[in-house]
């Protein structure tokens, strides 16, 4: 079962927003869940978060950052094209409750899946402080959406082109040094960012949840490609997650596992970039 692309927009260099037609997923998705897609008949299965849905229109939003062959092929699809296979929603929805003052920290495309979660946390009565970061201004995506569901928003960029210059972790450290208190933290972004955030919140005893984006194959618990060490247990991200207590996650191991196929991935990506060049010449 494929899904037709209804809308496409470049949010930042190599970052595309898509609206696809997928009525069932639109109706069934809860914040925190993801889907798996394949771009063509011999395509790879890759997981993507679901940042927003419109159950009435039967549409699902995706944000895709080009990091390899599959995401490159996806980002080359145009309105009217069909994504070959789409399956979901997968994973457990976020546990939503009123924690009190809640921190929401998003980095780059991680802001996209953070948005629906924050929206629910806000609805549940939390006071939400969001910290959004990106490499430069254009990578701070979905700012307006995040503002609409946050009580306070801090913005930073690596190069200082927008907001404070520095990482989200710096902003967090300032807030904590200023004596701001938080009851809960959710953070989504590059693994290294989530790891640093967890290291900062740990001594403060702030319960911190992270959403992990590991390598996956089936996404139903059948293969264990997605496994991570959480505390002294092995967990499958696709069925036990994608959210976990960040203070328990072994990020170093996870980052190494994420790089497991790097050589092959680079090979495939390079070949595709060549092909793309060829195509644009014609």
């Amino acid at each position, binding site marked *: 079962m494929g899904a037709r692309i209804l809308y496409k927009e470049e949010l930042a260099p190599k970052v595309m927003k898509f609206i696809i037609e997928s009525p069932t997923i639109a109706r069934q998705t809860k914040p925190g869940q993801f889907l798996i897609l394949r771009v063509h008949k011999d395509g790879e*299965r890759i997981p993507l978060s679901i940042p927003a849905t419109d159950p009435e229109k039967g549409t699902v939003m995706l944000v895709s950052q080009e990091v390899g*062959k599959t995401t490159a092929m996806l980002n080359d699809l145009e309105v009217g094209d069909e994504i070959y296979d789409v399956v979901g929603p997968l994973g457990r929805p976020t546990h939503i409750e009123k924690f009190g003052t809640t921190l929401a920290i998003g980095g780059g495309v991680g802001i996209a899946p953070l948005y629906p979660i924050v929206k629910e946390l806000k609805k549940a009565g939390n006071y939400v402080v969001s910290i959004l970061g990106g490499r430069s201004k254009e990578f701070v995506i979905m700012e307006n959406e995040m503002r609409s569901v946050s009580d306070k928003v801090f913005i930073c960029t690596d190069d200082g082109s927008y907001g404070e210059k520095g990482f989200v972790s710096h902003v967090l450290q300032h807030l904590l040094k200023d004596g701001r208190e938080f009851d809960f933290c959710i953070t989504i972004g590059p693994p290294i960012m989530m790891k640093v955030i967890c290291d900062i919140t740990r001594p403060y005893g702030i319960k911190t949840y992270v959403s992990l984006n590991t390598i996956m194959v089936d996404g139903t618990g059948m293969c264990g490609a997605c496994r991570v060490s959480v505390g002294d247990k092995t967990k499958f991200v696709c069925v036990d997650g994608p959210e976990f207590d960040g203070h328990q996650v072994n990020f170093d191991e996870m980052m190494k596992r994420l790089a497991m196929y790097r050589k092959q991935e680079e090979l495939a990506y390079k070949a595709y970039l060549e092909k793309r060049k060829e195509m644009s010449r014609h």
Partner: protein
Amino acid sequence: MMAEQQKGKKEKKEKIPRQPMPQRPLEERRTTFKEVPLGYSPEQAILEASRCIMCTKPKCVEGCPVEIDIPGFIQLIKEGKFIEAARKIKEQNSLPAICGRVCPQEDQCEKTCVLGIKGEPVAIGRLERFVADYEREHSAVTKPEIPPPTGKKVAIVGSGPAGLTCAGELAKMGHQVTIFEALHLPGGVLVYGIPEFRLPKDIVAAEIDYLKSMGVEVKTNHVIGLTFTVDELFDMGYDAVFIGIGAGLPRFLNIPGENLCGIFSANEFLTRVNLMKAYEFPRSDTPAFIGNKVAVLGAGNTAMDAARTSIRLGAREVHIVYRRTRKEAPARIEELERGEEEGVIFNWLMAPVRFIGDERGWVKAMECIRMELGEPDESGRRRPVPIKGSEFIMEVDMVIHAIGTNANRLLFQKAPDIKLNKWGYIDADPETGATSKPGVYAGGDIVTGSATVILAMGAGKKSARAIHEYIMNKK
């Protein structure tokens, strides 16, 4: 003179040896995913069939989980009526081309064959395969006569052998059947687990096309429990639901280092290679990793498939590591033998206790311990006991776990009214597959734990009959 000649003939008849299976040359096998056994020629099939002594009370039929009329189809082979023979099998078993290849006949029909007492049993499996292939290649597939629609709808969850069989039987009774499959291709273990060199995927695809021709609808990319719950299937108008979702989650050993890079479940490794066609990478998009020295943990069919796949992908050394002995190995004898021929090295009475990684986080060795066999355990097999102080280091750069599976609870999270047993599998009536939830039936590995294709098919068939009863009597 005449009498003597006849006597001679009779003696000669008894001496026809069991016909060997022609196989792809060994050299070629180590580098290709093409099927290894090549199948009987018609002459060989007739010769092998002529070995059957046509017992009046055939023991082989008792050994067959779906009670195929074995002497019946063998008689037809003797007469050269191959297509009729295939149809005879299909009265009881809708997937003979698959079962002829993957059934453990040595534990079933061929185990009970009378000829096996003194000599070698009739090669029933090879004959089954021969006629099924002959039918597929030589005749237009005929659709069974389907009665007028009953107007009843049944949802089948999972498209492994249990689900496919249940779907086929219900379609034959005139019900409208929809299969919901989580993956992008139907077939279950037949497509993602069992490799091409043992079961060509074309054969599975042909069976699924056949079901479709009977009006069965196949919806891939539907994970029941997430895309729809079981209750939602009823809301959508299905009158009954059959659950055949397989055994599910791969087991790991729970020993230090199991999440190092280079350590996999057989399910992941085989899925990448079979379902995702990683052996064609980069033409296909999914990569697979292959080590130089591979250790496969376990000695079942899954372990043998992983080991033989590793050889084909170019591993230099492939080891099976098993804590019991060859005698207890659950794999089919044929699989152990083929693996051995292809160069798989067997390490019996041995188990890893931890995995050791390098600075990059990749596995570089495992610490193992030697075992000895102690008292029998609840499975009746002698329990392996570690020998104190026998630890040693085995260098490996890839480890594949093929030590079994646990039930996947994903579907049950949203269906708490389906009762499970203490192992987490569905508590279903062995005769009907009925579960604790009205209108919900189950069969295959999700009820029994990892078992066999034929048992899953048998369960699917029994459930189909029970579902038919249920929906036709439902007010």
